[in-house]
């Protein structure tokens, strides 16, 4: 059984990464050419890692399920990317960024990892700028920043409301350069079906070619998962609808521990659900809260149009409850406050599941042009989706599942509990604790991919230089391929009546109702039963038309939903285990008299790392106790 060794280097926090890099094993360039690395995913972390590893001379194979690496879901990040540049002279520093992340994560992240993420953030901005990412600039030609939810300094670099797209296209360009050089071979339209473990080490993957349906074997000396998060477990979320947990889940079942699965961020500002066929909730960037004010009518069931409700009859509930941070409180705090207002009957819109985000005052003060410069594309998008013009009337918004802080457990080197298997970006758990601060996902993903993994992976690969190219005709590859094919066949052979999406929708509802923004023991226990029932129904009444060896999008969906039906149980189990409220995890039983999260540091200051124990068996919990040497654990207060 694997044990948890976080491998945090000795020494003062601020010197750990420098010291680590200075002592890590090196591989000479000639030997790097003999080593192969598989990277799954082409978002900021995946494409970043593939490019950086290619530049170093490794042979990289990069996979994505989309038709092009440029479409990975990092593309949809809107608001910005943090860095501790202190360009505004507002007292920012690596330490302050680190501190904000630790605090924002409600003291459930590992100090050393978080500090390192803050440390490399400045290099990330330098690198993207050099790659031609057109970040917003001031009139003097220097880079502009803005402030973002949950912090009081202005450290967020942005490219209008599509920072993720611009950063991703930067990564895509560096990836293309390595493809041209032959250092990276790109495999688009491939879905990872299983991880191949040989002699205890990750040695390859089984994929399905989504065009021909062909099942393929790919080998390497190490495997990197950059496969993103599992927010689509709620079905309706801000994620791309094909985002999934399958690669991470397959790795989990082969021995990689899954950490803090119940830490899922609910984003406070997305366009509310408008019809029952909806498959996606579009995010409206958190940056909007810099100028938008959130409110509901003071009277219940007030059906007047927003603009005819006078100021004194509006409840600006975030400003009222949290005067120090106002509309800029962290996402979990804002989401819960919104849910509380709507559950109490103050919600607006057809369903009552929406609140206003109002720009009237900002437009009056700054002028329409200034607001358009900052949020033009978001306002357009809102209008396109809803038909309403946010320059004229407030937006209606509601929280939606967004980002998963939980993920595969990794040590300081970003290696999972399977030697040779790494997890980077949103796919790992390490940097955001129980809640992620705005604009730190792009930062962490790019930092992991470009700057951290290429250093840490050496420590493992240095001992692999004598290992020749891994053959794909071994028993382990054959077995993994066989079980992958059998699973596809079994999905098709159920031949029931209901589509994969209809099961996904029902699973999402169970998760949203019982394991969403607010959780309690009774609801969680009920969810476990409901998930189990749904899983049984899935395996007896699923309908997948078509065959394996052709384009079969229903088959793709079915495989992902089947994995979600398993992950969902673990997620709920984790939420049950954590008998405290922290960050995005709010247990009703554990709250202060005024309704704020009540953390339990003596009992739960640990990372819950779950080990898969086999079909039908309960997961085994391993605790990595978090040591806080630098920061004092405080009650998070935004009042």
């Amino acid at each position: 059984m694997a044990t948890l060794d976080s491998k945090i280097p000795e020494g003062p926090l601020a010197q750990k990464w420098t010291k680590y890099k200075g002592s890590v094993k090196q591989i000479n360039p000639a030997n790097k050419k003999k080593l192969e690395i598989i990277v799954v995913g082409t978002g900021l972390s995946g494409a970043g890692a593939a490019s950086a590893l290619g530049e170093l001379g490794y042979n990289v194979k990069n996979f994505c399920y989309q038709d092009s690496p440029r479409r990975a879901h990092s593309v949809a990040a809107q608001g910005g990317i943090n860095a501790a540049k202190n360009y505004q002279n507002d007292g920012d520093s690596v330490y302050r960024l680190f501190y904000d992340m630790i605090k924002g994560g409600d003291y459930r992240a590992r100090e050393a990892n978080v500090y390192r993420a803050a440390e490399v953030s400045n290099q990330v901005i330098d690198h993207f700028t050099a790659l031609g990412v057109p970040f917003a600039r001031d009139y003097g030609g220097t880079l502009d920043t803005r402030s973002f939810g949950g912090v009081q300094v202005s450290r967020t670099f942005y490219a209008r409301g599509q920072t993720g797209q611009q950063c991703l296209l930067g990564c895509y360009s560096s990836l293309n350069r390595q493809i041209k050089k032959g250092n990276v071979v790109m495999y688009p339209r491939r879905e990872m079906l299983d991880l191949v473990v040989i002699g205890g080490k990750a040695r390859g993957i089984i994929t399905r070619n989504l065009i021909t349906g062909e099942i393929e074997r790919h080998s390497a000396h190490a495997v990197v998962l950059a496969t993103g998060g599992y927010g689509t477990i709620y079905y309706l979320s801000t994620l791309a609808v094909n985002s999934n947990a399958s690669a991470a889940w397959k790795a989990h079942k082969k021995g990689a521990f899954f950490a803090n699965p119940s830490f899922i961020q609910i984003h406070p500002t997305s366009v509310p659900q408008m019809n029952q066929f909806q498959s996606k909730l579009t995010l409206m960037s958190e940056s909007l809260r810099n100028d938008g004010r959130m409110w509901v009518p003071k009277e219940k069931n007030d059906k007047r149009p927003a603009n005819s409700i006078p100021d004194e009859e509006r409840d600006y509930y975030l400003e009222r409850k949290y005067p120090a941070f106002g509309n800029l409180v962290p996402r979990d705090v804002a989401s819960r406050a919104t849910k509380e207002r709507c559950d109490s009957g103050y919600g607006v819109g057809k369903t009552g599941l929406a609140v206003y985000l109002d720009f009237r005052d900002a437009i009056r003060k700054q002028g329409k042009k200034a607001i358009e410069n900052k949020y033009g594309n978001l306002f357009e998008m809102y209008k396109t989706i809803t038909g309403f013009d946010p320059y004229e009337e407030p937006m209606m918004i509601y929280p939606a599942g967004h980002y998963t802080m939980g993920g595969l457990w990794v040590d300081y080197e970003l290696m999972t509990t399977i030697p040779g298997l790494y997890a980077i970006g949103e796919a790992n758990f390490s940097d955001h604790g129980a809640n992620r601060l705005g604009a730190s996902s792009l930062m962490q993903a790019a930092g992991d991919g470009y700057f951290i993994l290429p250093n840490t992976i050496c420590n493992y690969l240095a001992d692999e230089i004598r290992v020749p190219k891994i053959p794909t005709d071994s028993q382990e590859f054959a077995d993994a391929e066989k079980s992958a094919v059998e699973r596809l066949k079994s999905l098709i052979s159920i031949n029931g009546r209901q589509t994969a999406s209809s099961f996904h929708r029902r699973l999402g509802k169970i998760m949203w109702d019982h394991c969403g923004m607010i959780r309690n023991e009774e609801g969680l226990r009920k969810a476990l039963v409901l998930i189990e029932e749904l899983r049984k129904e899935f395996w007896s009444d699923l309908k997948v038309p078509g065959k394996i060896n052709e384009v079969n999008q229903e088959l793709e969906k079915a495989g992902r939903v089947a994995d979600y039906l398993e992950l969902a149980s673990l997620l709920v189990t984790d939420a049950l285990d954590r008998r405290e409220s922290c960050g995005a995890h709010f247990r009703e039983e554990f709250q202060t008299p005024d309704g704020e999260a009540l953390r339990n540091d003596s009992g739960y200051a640990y990372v819950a790392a779950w080990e898969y124990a086999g079909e039908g068996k309960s997961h085994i919990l391993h605790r990595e106790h978090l040591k806080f040497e630098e920061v004092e654990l405080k009650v998070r207060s935004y009042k």
Partner: protein
Amino acid sequence: MDLRLKIWRQKDARSQGSFETYSMEDVSPEMSFLEMLDALNKKLVEQGKDPVAFDHDCREGICGSCGMYINGHPHGPVPAVTTCLLSMRYFRDGETIWVEPWRARAFPVIRDLIVDRSAFDKIQIAGGFISVNTGGAPEANSIPVPKKDSDNAFDSSICIGCGACVAACKNSSAMLFVSAKISQFALLPQGRIEAKERVRAMVDKMDELGFGSCSNTGACEAECPKQIRLTNIARLNREYYKAF
């Protein structure tokens, strides 16, 4: 509302395709076009039939996966939206809607509405990058860039690579797509250093892959969901002439 759909069905690249007719009842005007197709597919799957295959992912107009010809327009009749954000409120009860894949020699049909756009990646691989290694970048503020140039570069950089410009063009030209990337880098000091090599490599690759010539008709600009301007093509031409 009730709709009649005429959708292009094609089993694979080698098979002959044809239009199939489907009727859809009770379509809500609040649905997006792709949600309407989801609803159709649900019905088809429950009847044991093959669903209509189409590319899609983010469903918020930014990944560039989706794209189909709707009533003779790439991404449908509404300007500046992708298919995923095209609202059904723009269609009338009883309307017949024609749905086809992109049609261009360089974008062969894979199945139904899915086409192979890997030619776009190949053009980017040929030169759509700035040659800088990880770790070698100068401090970000050491190279000031005039705000105007940076804003213009941004306006060119927002192309999502969906292929609507090629589909809209009577010559299946990829000039708007290529010019957007060329412009982004040409406008930034970081990109100027390799400007000549880049424009030659990307244009050569574009020609090699079977995209047609540009005759400045402007259909690409009119149909681009991200409103990439025709001025980018002017800049591409200028950069190209300067490169020899």
